[in-house]
Structures are given as structure tokens and as C-alpha cells.
């Protein structure tokens, strides 16, 4: 990467910069024509003598008024031309700046992808992210100005200078007398500002690093009560930035001050010396005024040049400070990552993997692999065991080429893997780390991550979309960005041995079975909603399942376990809110927590005359809650689970109850009524057993239910997906659609029995596969946060298997799971892996499943045992 900003600018935008320069100069005459024309209009057209007219203009004879009109329109034309030039130049500069900025960011990001792994131990996300996003941002503006601005201003300066010198050489010399002094002193002062600028960049980086570190270590901060230490440290960093900034301001304005002083020092000399000479009659006043106005003209571009110089210094520091951070030693060769090899041959399972006196040195003192010798066949099933820190973590990373050896040689089939492109290591081999990362996408997208190396073709696009795609790629090329389109089809299902996405899903089902994830993914599918337009047959089957479930429940005499939603009946196992809405809330128009505050809900309740009763229920329940929970600690889980009132609202309710005693509901204001009304909405008669929901209330709620649906205003029509016994509810999960009701409270083993019957129904209708496929759409959350640690690792194993690698390298990966699961996974993954496996394991008792067991200690192989010798 270019070390200097001008190196970068010239390498990538020479032609555009030159073009901008030409356009800038082309605009030059028009800028000067405008004031000239004004002079002509005032002096000649308006103030001209009648005798001068008619005037000859390109062969026409014009009277004074006609001449005035012509001149005025010429003026208007020039104004338009000037405006157009300005517009064009500014847009071009902006576009050039943005393209260069885009190129710079792309290059920086692309370099991050090639950083050597150990480098990530030294730099934090908190530093790298702001460098690529904010720090380079101002450079875009500078790059647009980088050539045109200084050349144009310098050009003007030289033009004026020549103009003056031609008129009178001494006047010219006097006008620029101070320039050399300014040109000498200002860079001197600027140097200190530059140094401070560098310090500032580093200090700001440290701040972002601290923020990101505090977030990563937030639990430690809480559990050690060190938040005040963190605050103090943060304040000290901010203080440092303040100091630097203040110093910079100080010096910047000193420079400005000196600059202004020197600029005005010249006229001072003119007035003093020239005035003296004029009084004494040695200089004409006209000549003096001429010199002063020449100086004024030249000072404008000169000032611009100095401002540009400061801007340049600023940009230079920013650029250099960023770029030097993106050039760590040992970066992966670009060609190994970006270039597509002509072919990616399978690694023969018979070829040898040979490590010869392999050494990996992390720093001066840490040498986890030293003199490591090992030979095996690619197709072998190998277990690596040994104590932690002995090298059994690093060898798999070296084999997967995530680390590069610092000594010795690691060869596969006789060729040193250090020269292999990532197309080989990343496609023919797979690696699973002890804490694999999942991307914030669907389960499916994560499983297929290893199939997306290159776009394998365009999606089926309309002509318009194809044109948009071409335009996109052309623009990419102008900024030196990726020539591959992200919107293309990247998923190479052929790797999975599948021809279509549907076949791919089938293969994935087999793979998740080998990592013992079927039950989990099925659960995601069952407990998630599906888009009926995408899964029409599943939706149909779910409707069948709904019928079948009630039949099965009745068969087993379990119909009491589920209380179905019946439009004509109050569901005692659902909340009053659910009974009223009789549907699922799908938009933010309604808030389940504060339904009683919604004007439409309130008006519906008013119509059936329920508000008064509900307030009474709210009062009764609140009284009980205040009585029961008054001396329960606010943080007690009892509050969470059994109180209708949040701990922090308890005092508010106490006030409400006191007021109620004075005049019931009339004594309360709107907000207090809202608080009371919130309570009955949460009541579930079967669960809470407060006896407050009477049959009368039940009937009224059913009436309100009908009115609610009937009179629902158009703008709320999409806010609720109503329950309908004969149709699928797209807003509910598959499971809720099958149940179409509530599991009854208080039936011993009820949920378990219902769960079993649902599973049986699903099995019987043969929709388990479809539900699993729906489960592939489950979003895993940031870093897989919506999954358990075990689920994440299993998905990582499945992701590696999906590549069908010739050599599967597993580094720990199952260490955090329980022993039974670990054994199951070793067994199943070995069975499913199509090629060789090298697995660094922690339990030597699982070693019996492998062909060969290698014990590593102090960075060396200390023992090799055939698996057969270990078998009990």
C-alpha cells in the first residue's frame, strides 16, 4: 500500500485529477468575465454618453437600451455558466473523493482479512473498526481537492505576479515581500501541530479500544465492582485528548495570528513608506494604490494555499497513521486469497501429511511447537492428545494453515502447505475451533457458509435487475472494489452433492443428524412461525395436525390437557388480553403489556360496559398483590413470576389503593386508571385462581371480542392476526397452530403428554422433515447468541462436514460438552466425515475410536499408538 497519501492519489486517480484541473482552468475566464461585465454595464450601458450610440456589436447596430438589455442577458448567461461549472466541479470532486475513499476502505478491510492470526492478539476490534470507518472519512474531501486546488491557486498567484511584474517589477516585489518569511515560519510551526495530531489519533484510538474492552469485560467490571476504576481510567484518556486538542487549537490559532499579522504587515509597510514617499512627492498616489490593490488580489490565493497546506498536513497524518497499522509482518500473500486457481484438486486420501521439525514460535518466549515430527495419511483418523499448552492446540491450527510455521516444514502430498492458496486449504480442508463463531444469520446460512467461495452464477433476474447489476459492478471496478457481485448466487450446492436448494436441505438434514442437532433444529422449527406462502404444503399438514391432535387427545382421554380456542367461549387458560383480542399481535400498534392504554381497546370495553368491572378486578388484585408483596424484596424472583405488579411500581399502586378508598375509580386520574386496568389483562383464571373473573365477565369479554374484531379500524386491520379454527395463523408458531389452544394449567405431566402427542402427530403426518427445514430459517443472533454453547459448536461441526472435506481438522470443539455428548459426537462425526480426520481431544478414553493416537507434549510428538492397542 502506498505510504504517502499523494502516492495513493496519483496511483489511482491521475487521469481524473488532471481532468478536474483542466475543467477548473476552463472555468477561470468566466469567473473574471463576470465582474468585468458588471463594470461594462455600469460604465458603458448605463453611464455611457448618448453620443456613443448606436454601438456596433458583431455587425449589429444597437441603441443604448437594446445594448443594456443585451449586456444584462450576457451577465445572466455568465452567472449560469459559472454556476454550472461550480456544480460540475464540486460534484466531480465529491465523486472522485468518495471513490477514492471507497477504494481505501476496501483495501484496508481486504488487508484485515489477510492479517496473520497472531496479529489479532495485538490489535483490538476497537482500534481497527474506527480506523476503517471514521478516521479515513475526512480524506475523501481532501482527495477531491488534492491537485486542482493547489494548482489553481498557485496558478492564480503566478498570473497576478506576472501581471504586476510586467507593470512594475518593484511594486511586485514589494507585494510579495513577506511571502518568503511566511513560507519559512509556518511549516516550522505546523510541524509541532502535526506531531500533536499524531498523538491525538493515537489517543482517540486508545479510547475506542477501552470502550470495546469495557464492553467485552462488562461482567468482570460488575463482579469486581471496578466500574469506578473504569470511569476514572476513561476520564484520564478523555483528559489526554482534551489536552492535546487544546494544545492543537492553541497552536493553530497562533499560526493564524502570525499569518494574519504578516499578511497585514505588508500594507503597513506600504502605507508607512509609500505614504512617506508620496508626501514627499517621490511616488504618485496612483502608483501606491496600484501596489496595495495588487497585494490584495494576490493575498486571496496565497491565503487559500496556506489553508490547503494545513489541510494537507492533517490529511497526511491521518492517512499515514492508518496505513501503517495495516501492514503487519507476515501478512498472507494477496494472490493466495484473491486469485482463483485454475483448479482445486481433491487431496488424495493416500497422500502423506508430513511435519518435519516443525516449529511455531509465537514470540520471544512462547514456542508452543518445537521440533515436531509426524507423518500420516490424509485419510487417517487421528486423535491428538496431551496436556494443555503442550502444542495440541497449535498443531491443528498449523495444519489448517491458520498459523504459518516459523520453522521446519509441513507438507501434504509432498507440497509445502505454506504456498497453498486458501482455495485449497479452505475448500478441501475444514477446521473447527474450540469456540467457533456463527454469523448473525439463519441456521441454514451458517451451515452453508463453507459453500460460498465464489459466485457460481447469477440468480434469475429481470432485465432491469441485470442492468442494475452491471452498473453496480462497473462502479465497483472504478473504485478497485470486488469484481464479484454479492447478490449473485454464491452457494455451491454441488459441494454437498446436491443439485438444488431443496436437495441441499435434505443433505443438511443428514448432516445435522450426525452432529446430534436434529432435535434442536426441529424444536426451532416447531416453536417458530413459517411463511405460509413459502411452505404451503406444511401449512396444510399443520391444519391436519390440528385436527389429528384433538382426535388423539380424545383417544387417550386427555382432551382436558388442551383448552382449544373457541370463538364462542372464554379460554380459562389464556389471559384476559388473549381472550379479548382472540388473536396474535403482529404490529407495534398494540402493546401486550399496556393493552388497557390503547384508545381502541378502551372504547371497545366501554361499549360493552366492561371498564368499570375491570377496574374493580384491578383493584381487588392490586390489593392482594400489595398485601402479599409489600415486604418481599424487590429483586426476589417471586415478583417476576407471580406478581402482576412490578416491584418498582408497588408504591404507585399503594397510592392508588389509598385514593380508591376515597371515591373508587372516580378518585383516580387517567394514568392511575391505566395502571389498574393493566392488571386484569394479565389474569389467567386457571392459573391464578383468584376467583375474580366471573361468568358475567367472561360473557362480556366474549361480546367485546366480537365487537373488537368487527369494528377494527382499517389502519389497525393488519395489527392482529385473529384465531380462526379453520385457518392457519401465520403470526403464531407451528406448535401453537397445531395446539390451537392453551395447554391446561394444573394437569400433572400435562405439557409432557401434549408434547409427546404433538411429536406423534408430526411423525404420523410425516412433516418432521418440513418442520426441520423451517427450523433452518431460525436466526442464530449475533455471534450465535440465541443458541447454547453446545448448539453453536454442533453447528460449527455440521458446517465443516457440509464442505465434505478431504481432511477435517477439529481443535477441541467439543470440550465444553458433557462426556456422553462428547463420545456421541466423536463417534458420529467420524462416521459422517468423508475423508481423514485429525481431532485434538481432551479425553483419552475416546481415543479408541481413532486409527492412531498421537500424544503431544512440550511441542513435540512423544508417543504414537495405534488405536487398536487402546481398545479395552
Amino acid at each position, binding site marked *: 500500500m502506498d505510504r504517502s497519501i499523494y502516492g495513493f492519489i496519483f496511483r489511482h486517480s491521475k487521469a481524473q485529477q488532471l481532468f478536474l484541473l483542466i475543467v477548473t482552468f476552463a472555468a477561470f475566464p468566466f469567473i473574471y468575465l463576470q465582474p468585468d461585465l458588471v463594470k461594462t454595464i455600469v460604465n458603458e450601458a448605463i453611464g455611457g454618453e448618448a453620443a456613443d450610440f448606436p454601438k456596433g456589436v458583431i455587425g449589429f447596430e444597437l441603441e443604448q437600451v437594446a445594448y443594456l438589455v443585451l449586456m444584462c442577458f450576457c451577465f445572466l448567461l455568465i452567472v449560469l455558466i459559472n454556476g454550472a461549472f461550480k456544480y460540475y466541479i464540486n460534484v466531480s470532486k465529491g465523486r472522485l473523493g468518495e471513490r477514492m475513499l471507497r477504494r481505501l476502505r476496501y483495501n484496508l478491510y481486504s488487508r484485515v482479512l489477510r492479517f496473520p492470526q497472531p496479529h489479532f492478539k495485538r490489535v483490538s476490534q476497537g482500534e481497527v473498526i474506527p480506523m476503517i470507518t471514521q478516521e479515513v472519512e475526512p480524506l475523501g474531501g481532501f482527495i477531491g481537492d488534492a491537485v486542482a486546488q493547489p494548482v489553481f491557486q498557485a496558478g492564480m498567484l503566478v498570473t497576478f505576479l506576472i501581471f504586476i511584474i510586467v507593470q512594475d517589477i518593484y511594486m511586485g516585489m514589494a507585494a510579495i515581500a513577506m511571502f518568503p518569511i511566511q513560507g519559512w515560519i509556518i511549516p516550522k510551526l505546523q510541524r509541532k501541530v502535526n506531531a500533536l495530531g499524531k498523538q491525538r489519533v493515537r489517543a482517540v484510538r486508545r479510547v475506542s479500544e477501552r470502550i470495546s474492552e469495557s464492553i467485552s469485560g462488562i461482567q468482570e467490571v460488575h463482579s469486581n465492582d471496578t466500574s469506578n476504576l473504569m470511569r476514572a481510567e476513561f476520564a484520564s484518556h478523555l483528559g489526554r485528548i482534551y489536552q492535546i486538542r487544546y494544545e492543537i487549537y492553541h497552536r493553530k490559532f497562533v499560526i493564524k495570528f502570525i499569518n494574519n499579522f504578516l499578511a497585514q504587515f505588508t500594507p503597513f509597510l506600504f502605507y508607512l513608506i509609500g505614504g512617506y514617499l508620496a508626501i514627499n512627492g517621490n511616488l504618485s498616489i496612483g502608483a501606491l494604490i496600484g501596489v496595495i490593490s495588487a497585494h490584495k488580489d494576490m493575498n486571496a490565493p496565497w491565503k487559500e494555499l496556506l489553508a490547503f497546506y494545513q489541510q494537507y498536513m492533517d490529511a497526511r497524518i491521518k492517512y499515514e497513521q492508518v496505513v501503517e497499522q495495516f501492514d503487519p509482518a507476515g501478512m498472507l500473500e494477496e494472490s493466495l486469497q484473491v486469485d482463483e486457481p485454475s483448479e482445486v484438486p481433491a487431496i488424495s486420501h493416500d497422500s502423506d501429511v508430513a511435519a518435519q521439525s516443525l516449529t511455531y514460535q509465537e514470540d520471544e518466549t512462547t514456542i508452543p511447537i518445537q521440533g515436531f515430527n509426524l507423518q500420516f495419511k490424509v485419510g487417517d483418523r487421528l486423535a491428538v492428545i496431551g496436556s494443555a499448552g503442550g502444542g495440541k492446540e497449535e498443531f491443528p491450527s498449523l495444519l489448517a494453515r491458520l498459523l504459518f510455521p516459523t520453522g521446519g516444514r509441513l507438507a501434504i502430498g509432498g507440497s509445502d502447505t505454506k504456498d497453498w492458496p486458501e482455495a485449497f486449504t479452505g475448500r478441501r480442508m475444514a477446521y473447527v475451533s474450540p469456540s467457533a463463531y456463527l454469523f448473525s444469520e439463519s441456521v441454514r446460512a451458517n451451515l452453508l457458509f463453507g459453500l460460498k467461495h465464489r459466485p457460481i452464477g447469477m440468480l434469475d433476474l429481470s432485465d432491469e435487475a441485470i442492468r442494475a447489476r452491471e452498473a453496480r459492478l462497473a462502479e465497483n471496478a472504478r473504485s478497485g472494489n470486488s469484481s464479484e457481485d454479492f447478490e449473485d448466487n454464491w452457494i455451491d450446492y454441488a459441494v454437498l452433492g446436491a443439485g438444488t436448494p431443496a436437495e441441499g436441505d435434505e443433505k443438511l438434514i443428514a448432516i445435522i443428524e450426525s452432529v446430534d442437532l436434529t432435535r434442536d433444529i426441529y424444536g426451532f422449527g416447531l416453536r417458530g412461525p413459517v411463511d405460509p406462502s413459502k411452505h404451503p404444503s406444511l401449512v396444510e399438514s399443520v391444519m391436519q395436525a390440528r385436527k389429528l391432535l384433538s382426535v388423539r387427545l380424545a383417544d387417550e382421554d386427555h382432551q382436558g390437557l388442551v383448552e382449544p380456542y373457541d370463538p364462542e367461549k372464554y379460554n380459562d387458560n389464556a389471559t384476559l388480553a388473549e381472550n379479548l383480542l382472540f388473536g396474535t399481535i403482529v404490529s407495534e400498534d398494540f402493546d401486550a403489556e399496556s393493552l388497557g392504554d390503547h384508545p381502541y381497546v378502551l372504547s371497545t370495553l366501554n361499549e360493552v360496559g366492561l371498564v368499570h368491572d375491570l377496574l374493580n378486578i384491578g383493584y381487588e388484585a392490586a390489593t392482594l398483590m400489595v*398485601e*402479599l408483596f409489600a415486604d418481599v424484596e424487590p429483586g426476589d424472583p*417471586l415478583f417476576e413470576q407471580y406478581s402482576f405488579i412490578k416491584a418498582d411500581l408497588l408504591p404507585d399502586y399503594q397510592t392508588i389503593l389509598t385514593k380508591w378508598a376515597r371515591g373508587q375509580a372516580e378518585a383516580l386520574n387517567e394514568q392511575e386508571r391505566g395502571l389498574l386496568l393493566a392488571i386484569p389483562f394479565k389474569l389467567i383464571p386457571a392459573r391464578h385462581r383468584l376467583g375474580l373473573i366471573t361468568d358475567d365477565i367472561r360473557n362480556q369479554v366474549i361480546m367485546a371480542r366480537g365487537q373488537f374484531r368487527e369494528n377494527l379500524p382499517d389502519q389497525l386491520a393488519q395489527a392482529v392476526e385473529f384465531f380462526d379454527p379453520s385457518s392457519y395463523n401465520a403470526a403464531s408458531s407451528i406448535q401453537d397452530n397445531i395446539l390451537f389452544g392453551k395447554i391446561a394449567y394444573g394437569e400433572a405431566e400435562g405439557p409432557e403428554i401434549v408434547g409427546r402427542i404433538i411429536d406423534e402427530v408430526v411423525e404420523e403426518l410425516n412433516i418432521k422433515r418440513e418442520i426441520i427445514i423451517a427450523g433452518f430459517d431460525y436466526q442464530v443472533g449475533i455471534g450465535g447468541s440465541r443458541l447454547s454453547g453446545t448448539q453453536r459448536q454442533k453447528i460449527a461441526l455440521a458446517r465443516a462436514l457440509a464442505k465434505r472435506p478431504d481432511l477435517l481438522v477439529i481443535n477441541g470443539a467439543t470440550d465444553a460438552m458433557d462426556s456422553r455428548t462428547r463420545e456421541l459426537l466423536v463417534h458420529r462425526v467420524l462416521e459422517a466425515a468423508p475423508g481423514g480426520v485429525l481431532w485434538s481431544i481432551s479425553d483419552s478414553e475416546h481415543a479408541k475410536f481413532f486409527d492412531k493416537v498421537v500424544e503431544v507434549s512440550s511441542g513435540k510428538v512423544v508417543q504414537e499408538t495405534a488405536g487398536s492397542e487402546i481398545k479395552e
Partner: protein
Amino acid sequence: MSLTEEVDVLRGIPLFERMDVSKLKLLAISSDRVTFRPGAIMMSQGGDGDAAYVIISGTGDVLIDTPGGQIKVAEVGPGQIVGEIAILIDVPRTATVKTEEGLTALKIGKENFLRLLTGSPQVAVEIIRVLAARLENTNAQLREAVSAAGR
């Protein structure tokens, strides 16, 4: 049956008889009411216990495994508590309880119960008092048995 009735049943249990009404209500509200069908196993000997059951209606047989098979040692009915040892200490269930004709009970979860104890010392003292009385009772029986054996 509503909360108040459940509180009455709870108050009939010696373990809870001296507890404040408000505490009993809290205990009732934080407990689930569960229904067992005829012949259902409420708890089985040797299994983990995480709840005690206060029987509201119906009866159950208390069965103990012996080398000769299960034998019925007692019958429990409304107003009685079963499995209360499990909510105080981690021991496997000492007997199996099987319902006769279906039974409704208040299920008192171990965690909620312990939380209630830590939240109010007087409840804890009451429990200690009841347990001490039981221990004394057992001791007395033991003394009697020993002297009977000596005679």
C-alpha cells in the same frame, strides 16, 4: 376452589399452621394446583424430589419397595402433605405415592418454599419448631421400642 380455600387447607397442615395468613397466601399463589388422574404416580421411591404436595381432594396410597414387592404402608387424603422432606433437604423420595381415584393437590415447589423461608425468619422458626417436635416424637417412639425390646 379459590385462593382463600387453598389457604385454609394449608393452614390445616401442622408444618404451616402458625404461619401468617399473608405468607400462606403468598405460598398458595406461588404454588401450582395440579390434578392427577386415577392411578397416576405422584412420586416414585428413589426419584428426585423438588416439590411437596398438599392434597386438596382425593386419596393416594403410600407404597414402599420391599424385596417382596411394593407394599402399601399408609393412605393419604385431603389436608395432608406428602413429600415435604424433599423441599427441605436433597434426599431421594423415600416412598412411592400413587393416586387412587384421581387427586388434586397444591404443588409447593422447593425453590419457592426455601425463598419464603429465607425471606421471613419467623416462618423458619415455625418450621424448626415443627421439625423438632417430630424429632422428639421419633425419639420417644425409639425409646419405647428399645425398652419394649429389652423387656
